[in-house]
């Protein structure tokens, strides 16, 4: 049976219009002089950052700590923040990613990617519409397990966090072409076992 992975369903990045980014930038500028204005940013992005860290740790208590640490670091170095035409969330993701990396480097434990089952169900389908999901998901998981961690990071940011390549390159501190290269490597690997529907 032909297994199909439909990545198009997940690839619509959470694009913000330029007006929205400019509007957000005003809040950030206000927060630079008055920390209380940071509440709006905290409210807007807490859930996203929490989910991102939870996907990287699979531990709610740890996620709580790291999310809190991420926002604290953001607040403390807000004055150093430079607008680069990206949503402010990209900067928060970068701090969160660094915090997660720091945690794993300190604990010297194997990295975790905790993916929501229902999210995977959204992307896997079969030609006859009768998904033998358990078997397919197991194959998908073992394929993802075989990917290098840096490739998995890009894949997760692109399809689960729905970040654009420009944002991913900023978050992971790599070039945009490097981010694309990593993703293509992942897609090529997936193509060995699945028919991948994806068009960037």
């Amino acid at each position, binding site marked *: 049976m032909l297994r199909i992975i439909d990545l198009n369903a997940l690839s619509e990045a959470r694009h913000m219009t330029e007006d929205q980014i400019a509007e957000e930038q005003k809040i950030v500028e206000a927060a630079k002089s008055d920390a209380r204005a940071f509440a709006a940013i905290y*409210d807007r992005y807490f859930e996203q950052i929490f989910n991102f860290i939870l996907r990287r740790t699979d531990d709610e208590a740890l996620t709580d700590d790291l999310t809190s640490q991420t926002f604290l670091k953001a607040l403390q170095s807000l004055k150093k923040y430079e607008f680069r035409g990206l949503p402010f969330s990209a900067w928060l993701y970068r701090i969160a990613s660094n915090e997660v990396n720091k945690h794993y480097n300190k604990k010297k434990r194997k990295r975790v990617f905790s993916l*929501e089952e229902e999210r*995977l169900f959204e992307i896997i389908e079969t030609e006859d519409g009768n998904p033998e999901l358990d078997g397919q998901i197991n194959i998908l998981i073992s394929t993802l397990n075989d990917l290098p961690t840096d490739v998995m990071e890009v894949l997760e940011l692109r399809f689960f966090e729905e970040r654009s390549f420009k944002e991913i390159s900023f978050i992971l501190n790599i070039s945009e072409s490097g981010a694309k290269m990593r993703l293509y490597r992942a897609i090529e690997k997936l193509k060995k076992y699945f028919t991948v529907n994806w068009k960037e």
Partner: protein
Amino acid sequence: MGRHEIRLRRNRMTSGRIEGYKDYRDLMNKHSRADRLRKAYRLSIIVLGIIGLLFLSYLFFRSSEKSTPTSGVQKISRPGVLINYSLNTENNGKT
């Protein structure tokens, strides 16, 4: 053996549950505490810097004071040479 582990989560975290972890007041408390600590650290660095500068300037002036002679005339003692040896006291200096 992979370099990472892929885990499947049966349930997605609900917004309501994540909301329970939000604590903006705690964040602000931590921020103000960290801010106070940072200010205290900066202040102590400045104070230590000033103390260091004062100490260095004290050492500098002390050493320059030591090297400066107390008067413009150099005193040389010449044992065995009488002070009045060359003085003409017979005719008030007329030769």
